[in-house]
């Protein structure tokens, strides 16, 4: 009744709501397209425009694509009404990426708005302009940002700071320096608000450019309290990283506590770690965890876990050299001082960030400071409570003493969500002490009675953990758990509910864990006591006859494993197979401990044999195991009886339905036939050396190894407050702390580089003759070679077989210095030879002229043949061959990898260094990527001794090698990152020289730092990797391709879409004097060229759509293949086009690759460069 009334009340409420929706935008949301929007957009009145825009916004909100209104909306940017402007901006930002060309139309208005007297208008214009993400206008935006960074309005400067990451996101290598300069400028701003935004920009643009921070460190610390809370979070992180990079870790802090307390740490790890665990709350265990934590923070746990086996502390750089002191170091002191008040911030994220700093940097005795603020955060909303608890959990594990006095704060409340409850339980079990354990256990009892059985099971698990941490309470725990097990299993009615089982299983699991770790003997009194209590319990529960108990108690005169005995006795009433299996395991494992168990064993085995066929597979397997164990350790008098029973069980098992059971039965039967035979033998001559191998094996497998398996620390530690700590894996973009002392001061850096210069200054004079012609020749020659070898075998037509030589001749004889012209000329040669209507080579631009050089005849034949190709296999062959000839043979030489600036003349005293990725594959190691580096001396004086070397800081050499496992390090020797380049002896003014460089990037996204030495000075440079060159072409034909593709479905396949626009400009140029059909070809060629110029791939095939409409490109499909350099895993890429010739094409890029992360990154890269407009 009542609920019914509630429903009516609700609908009444709804009705009244309807009445009050008048005057809002409700009607716009409900029926956004009930009027025609287009005329409204063109209206003269702002209010009508507004309405139209709101309707569009409503459609966006509801997930409709309204990008077709783009041109009309863009016009309204010019409106004077701020509301219209805002709405247009909202629309623009939503669709700009989709309609880049139209978005360009708005740039002029933005430029105008940037000069507006109203700061709001300036700020909005800047935000939107930066937000539309077009490469073309990036230089304009950069200028605008630079201007706005000096704006008198704080708000505009703040927007300038937030615009920087957007610019950076476009990956404009050439502007990086300018962007970083603006960041530096904004960090110096007087307004705290701007500093906060600048900090966020710094963190996303150049998080490791610590020199920017170093200059302002003190001032940043001082402004920290005034910065907005969001800025505070980021800034705290930046300052922490800076201090660690500059001064290293604090000697008195938790991170280094293991050094001071326990030096021979590595030994302890090897020797029995379970011993350390058994002694709870002692320093070694805790320092061990602290040690793991500090290492995880510095290296990231993934790296750390991978080398868990052979840890060498010295490699960490944690040794004395880069340790500082919180008391003597001013920078550390200031950081701790300025973050202390933030511990009481209103914003919990700030509190957590500040707590993280203290956790890492503060001396151990001062860490207490963070406890109360953290506990106070538990008063906040449940979402943040969860995050805070996740972090407290780590703190509590490493330093239980911090939180142990506050155990009451972690008592569970019925208002908490399940996740929070489990976290609290875990924390409770890790902070329990002997003084608090009794209250905690009392609480636990209440949790066990909770209606949520998952919680009850978790509580039981927590009890097990407590008992393992505090061995003195183990027996209390055991008794409690036993009682639980007995009462749970007696709850037969409840056991029918699946939920009850989880509790029981967990109870048995905890019992098992406790028993495992107990020493195999107890004091008598304890056991007696145990008996007593069990007796009482039994009597109370009325489960067991008193007579039996008395008998047992009287009989017991030595250690009895009563727990097991009782559990075994209750077997009958336990339903959960997992629980049964565990009890049986315990019985088998401890069958010869104490007289009581061994006495009951024959009966129990008989009982199990009788029940065998009714059991679940899990239990059956345990029964077989237990049988063998029992037999191996049986007394002589029981032997014959047991043998019969076990034989019976094995016979049953051999004809079981499940092959697992059958197999095990057979194996064990074999074992037994040996062992049992030997048993008599051994009895006769006890000390004999003669032991059958099988027997040893059996003993080894089933023997009494009650040793606790050394528990590997399954914890993964990430920096406090990070997302990774919550999801327990390194999220993309997660960066561990920088290497301690990796930052050297400017003056230090100079002296250091000087020193290195003298060391590496081995003179190896090379001739200064080679210039770019030679080098490009060598490169293109190799390229060509590769191509001919690939394709001639596939039977391309005779004309192309001569290409290689022809091309080489052409390029040799050619004296033109422009590389691209050179290629186009050579390109023209084969084409014109084939071509009946040989056209004149257009030498102004090889790319433009290319389309005209194509044989129209072959093209036409290909186009005509293609429709038939689906039916006839020979036709397919033919069609593909002609395709291959068109797109690969010729494109191969058009490929021109993009060139990046490594050093510009302004920074390098006139030396400019450019590099481009080469498609060559290193012969030394698959880890290496080949680069072609060109040096140009644009100064007026000659330069000498130009050489690259690996970056080496004073302590850094060890740590930089960290990632390389020891074996690899040996094989690579000292040149792990860089295969030493031939030094350039001298470089005259104006001269250009090329060199091949082979480098190993540690990561396919992170830049590699190198040191470029020339003229005796050193310059740190960054090589940015291009994931497109971490692969090499993998030649295959279309059949292999589709076969491979079908093997990599599902999670190995990812698709992304982008817009391809390169062809438009060219189509427009040549529209007048070429036939429509050429457009297909041109687009194919453009696409393939773009792909091959940006990634080292093999073009497998190009498939044409069979479309009636010649202008419709939809269905055109290009396939590429490559294999990852480092592990030879193939990557298959399929490009499918959609759209018409003269418009932006929608390209869907599909990647099939086993290496998911690499594949995704490569896919992203492809999408980015495909969408990039042609320069």
């Amino acid at each position, binding site marked *: 009744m009542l609920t019914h009334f509630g429903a009516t009340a609700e609908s009444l409420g709804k009705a009244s709501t309807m009445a009050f929706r008048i005057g809002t935008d*409700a009607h716009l949301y409900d029926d956004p397209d009930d009027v025609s929007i287009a005329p409204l957009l063109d209206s003269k009145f702002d209010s009508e425009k507004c309405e139209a825009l709101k309707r569009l916004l409503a459609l966006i909100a509801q997930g409709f694509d309204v990008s077709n209104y783009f041109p009309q909306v863009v016009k309204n940017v010019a409106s004077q009404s701020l509301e219209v402007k805002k709405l247009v901006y909202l629309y623009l930002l939503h669709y700009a990426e989709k309609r880049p060309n139209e978005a360009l139309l708005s740039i002029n208005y933005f430029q105008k708005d940037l000069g507006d007297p109203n*700061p709001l208008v300036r700020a909005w214009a800047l935000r939107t302009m930066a937000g539309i993400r077009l490469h073309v206008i990036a230089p304009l935006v950069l200028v605008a940002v630079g201007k706005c960074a000096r704006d008198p309005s704080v708000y505009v400067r703040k927007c300038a700071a937030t615009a920087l990451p957007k610019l950076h996101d476009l990956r404009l290598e050439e502007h990086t320096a300018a962007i970083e300069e603006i960041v530096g400028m904004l960090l110096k701003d007087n307004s705290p608000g701007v500093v906060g935004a600048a900090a966020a920009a710094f963190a996303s643009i150049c998080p490791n450019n610590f020199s920017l921070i170093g200059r302002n460190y003190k001032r940043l610390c001082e402004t920290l309290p005034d910065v907005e809370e969001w800025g505070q979070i980021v800034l705290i992180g930046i300052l922490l990283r800076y201090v660690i990079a500059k001064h290293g870790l604090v000697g008195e802090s938790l991170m280094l506590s293991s050094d001071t307390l326990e030096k021979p740490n590595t030994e302890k790890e090897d020797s029995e770690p379970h011993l350390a665990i058994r002694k709870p709350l002692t320093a070694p265990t805790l320092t061990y965890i602290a040690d793991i934590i500090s290492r995880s923070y510095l290296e990231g746990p993934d790296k750390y876990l991978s080398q868990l086996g052979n840890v060498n502390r010295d490699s960490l750089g944690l040794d004395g050299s880069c340790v500082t002191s919180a008391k003597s170091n001013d920078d550390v002191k200031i950081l701790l001082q300025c973050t202390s008040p933030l511990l009481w911030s209103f914003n919990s994220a700030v509190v957590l960030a500040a707590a993280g700093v203290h956790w890492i940097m503060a001396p151990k005795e001062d860490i207490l400071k963070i406890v109360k603020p953290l506990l106070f955060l538990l008063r906040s909303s449940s979402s943040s409570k969860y995050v805070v608890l996740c972090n407290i959990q780590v703190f509590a594990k490493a330093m239980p003493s911090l939180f142990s006095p506050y155990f009451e704060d972690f008592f569970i409340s019925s208002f908490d969500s399940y996740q929070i409850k489990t976290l609290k339980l875990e924390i409770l079990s890790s902070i329990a002490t002997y003084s608090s354990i009794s209250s905690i256990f009392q609480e636990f009892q209440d949790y066990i009675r909770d209606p949520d059985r998952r919680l009850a099971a978790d509580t039981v698990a927590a009890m097990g953990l407590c008992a393992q941490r505090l061995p003195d309470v183990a027996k209390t725990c055991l008794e409690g758990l036993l009682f639980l097990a007995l009462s749970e299993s007696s709850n037969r009615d409840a056991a029918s509910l699946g939920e009850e089982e989880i509790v029981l299983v967990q109870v048995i699991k905890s019992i098992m864990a406790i028993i495992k770790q107990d020493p195999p003997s107890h004091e008598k009194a304890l056991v007696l006591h145990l008996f007593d209590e069990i007796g009482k319990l039994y009597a109370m529960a009325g489960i067991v006859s008193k007579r039996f108990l008395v008998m047992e108690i009287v009989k017991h005169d030595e250690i009895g494993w009563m727990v097991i005995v009782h559990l075994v006795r209750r077997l009958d009433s336990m339903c959960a197979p997992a629980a049964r299996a565990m009890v049986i395991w315990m019985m088998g494992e401890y069958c010869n401990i104490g007289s009581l168990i061994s006495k009951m064993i024959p009966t129990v085995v008989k009982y199990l044999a009788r029940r065998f066929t009714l059991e679940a597979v899990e239990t059956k397997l345990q029964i077989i195991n237990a049988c063998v164990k029992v037999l191996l350790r049986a007394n002589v008098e029981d032997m014959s009886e047991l043998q019969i029973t076990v034989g019976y069980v094995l016979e049953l098992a051999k004809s079981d339905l499940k092959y697992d059971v059958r197999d095990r039965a057979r194996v064990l039967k074999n074992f037994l036939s040996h062992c049992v035979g030997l048993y008599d033998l051994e009895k006769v001559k006890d000390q004999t050396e003669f032991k059958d191998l099988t027997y040893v094996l059996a003993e080894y497998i089933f023997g009494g190894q009650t040793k606790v398996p050394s528990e590997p620390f399954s914890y993964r530690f990430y920096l406090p407050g990070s997302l990774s700590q919550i999801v327990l894996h390194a999220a993309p973009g997660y960066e561990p702390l920088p290497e301690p002392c990796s930052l050297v001061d400017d003056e230090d850096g100079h002296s250091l580089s000087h020193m290195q210069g003298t060391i590496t200054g081995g003179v190896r004079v090379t001739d200064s003759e080679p210039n770019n012609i030679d080098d490009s020749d060598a490169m293109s020659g190799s390229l060509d070679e590769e191509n001919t070898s690939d394709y001639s075998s596939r039977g391309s037509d005779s004309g192309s077989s001569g290409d290689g030589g022809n091309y080489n001749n052409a390029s040799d004889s050619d004296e033109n210095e422009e590389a691209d012209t050179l290629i186009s000329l050579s390109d023209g040669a084969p084409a014109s030879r084939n071509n009946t209507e040989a056209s004149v080579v257009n030498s102004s631009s090889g790319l433009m002229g290319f389309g005209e050089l194509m044989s129209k005849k072959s093209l036409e034949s290909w186009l005509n043949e293609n429709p038939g190709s689906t039916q006839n296999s020979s036709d397919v062959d033919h069609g593909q061959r002609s395709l291959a000839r068109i797109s690969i043979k010729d494109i191969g030489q058009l490929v021109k990898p993009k060139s990046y600036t490594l050093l510009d003349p302004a920074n390098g005293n006139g030396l400019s260094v450019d590099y481009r990725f080469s498609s060559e594959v290193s012969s030394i190691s698959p880890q290496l990527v080949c680069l072609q580096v060109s040096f140009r001396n644009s100064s007026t004086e000659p330069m000498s001794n130009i050489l690259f070397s690996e970056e080496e800081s004073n302590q850094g050499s060890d740590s930089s090698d960290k990632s390389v496992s020891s074996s690899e390090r040996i094989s690579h020797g000292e040149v792990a990152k860089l295969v030493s380049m031939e030094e350039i002896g001298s470089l005259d003014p104006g001269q250009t020289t090329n060199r091949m460089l082979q480098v190993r990037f540690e990561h396919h996204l992170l830049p590699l730092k190198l040191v470029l030495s020339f003229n005796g000075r050193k310059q740190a440079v960054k090589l940015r990797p291009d994931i497109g060159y971490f692969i090499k072409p993998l030649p295959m034909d279309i059949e292999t391709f589709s076969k491979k593709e079908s093997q990599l479905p599902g999670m190995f396949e990812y698709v992304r879409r982008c817009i391809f626009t390169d062809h438009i400009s060219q189509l427009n140029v040549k529209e007048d004097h070429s036939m429509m059909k050429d457009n297909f070809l041109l687009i194919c060629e453009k696409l393939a060229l773009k792909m091959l110029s940006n990634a080292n791939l093999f073009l497998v095939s190009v498939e044409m759509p069979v479309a009636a409409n010649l202008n419709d490109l939809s269905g055109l499909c290009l396939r590429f293949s490559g294999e990852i350099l480092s592990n030879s895993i193939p990557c298959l890429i399929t490009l499918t086009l959609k759209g018409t010739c003269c418009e932006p094409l929608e390209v869907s890029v599909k990647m099939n690759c086993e290496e998911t992360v690499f594949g995704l990154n490569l896919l992203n890269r492809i999408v980015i460069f495909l969408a990039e407009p042609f320069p």
Partner: protein
Amino acid sequence: MLQCIFLLSDSGEVMLEKQLTGHRVDRSICAWFWDQIITQGDSLKSVPVIASPTHYLFQVVREGITFLACTQVEMPPLMAVECLLLSLSRHCEAMLWVADVLSDYLDGLNEDLIKDNFVIVYELLDEMIDNGIPLTTEPNILREMIAPPNIVSKVLSVVTGNTSNMSNTLPGATSSCVPWRKTDLKHTSNDVYVDLVEEMDATINRFPVLNPLIFSFMLRDGTLVKCEIYGEVQVNSHLSGLPDLTLSFANPSVLNDVRVKKLKNTPIYVKPQLTSDAGTCRISVLVGIRNDPGKPIDSITVQFQLPPCVTSSDLSSNYGAVNVLADKTCSWTIGRIPKDKAPSMSGTLVLETGVERLHVFPTFQVGFRIMGVALSGLKIDKLDLLNLPSRPYKGFRALTRAGEFQVRS
């Protein structure tokens, strides 16, 4: 940085999507999310951070509306969860609190309010977050930039057809070092009210417990496991300009680390009793005043979750209304305890067939409110005001209400 924010209704419908960066997030992620909610049940609703195959999702649920934010890269989760989404949802709530007149009809934030004011929500989101990083979150500034809807402006908009809610000028506070206050604030009234709001958290054990762990019977009748008070000072000021206010307490020693106060007793008692036999369970709950705080206790409610093995219930009370909801939540609204009788609720619960006795016991969540009393005993001494042209009217008030007040049966 956050890439996208979705607002989902309680049926999983995407009401609004706002892309924050150039890296678009497809709304199919919402479908994935909702699938997970449906398959994994409500327990997922309380996990603030979820790792989906493509994105990390942060969720905050307010009034049935799920705020879902997506990111692909590392960022402080609390920044996203707590601060961003909460302040966002709080803000939307505040924004969408239409005039006071309407607030009686509308519950702060609901689906319709979001839909009705979607333009404002969009404008707000755009102003609050730029490129995934918070830009302006100070409510004071936002209010000036984007006018909250109110009844007057609505009527005006109907009459005049002018619907603009964007301000044409940049609020002065953006450049001030006190961003939470307008630079030239003027109030017609000159008064300031200080409320001391306290919340009492308590956990009380009620049932005689057999304690197998320490092997003795213990009667833990009414044992206070935990009892704490958490207080907040709320100030409602209508003072003009930028005055300095200093609040001092008469007995600051009560404060334990400016944190929480531990107490020995609670103002009211709740005595639940459950006895079960032969498939039925008899339940009775008594509520009464234990320590009279000197002021009336009102808004008393008792709420508990029926154990899953209960199939049907028949509950009645001698005072107040008992209501059993579909999700087996039973709530008993008492209000103020009458003079003449002690409120009690009793009834029987029918257990599932096969279950003889109840072996799990519900926890009773209690709510109450006491006006005019700060149970911690904390007293405000005085409020000093400096830098103010005329003497304002000062008002003080105290209030205690139940926080996490639970009684275990």
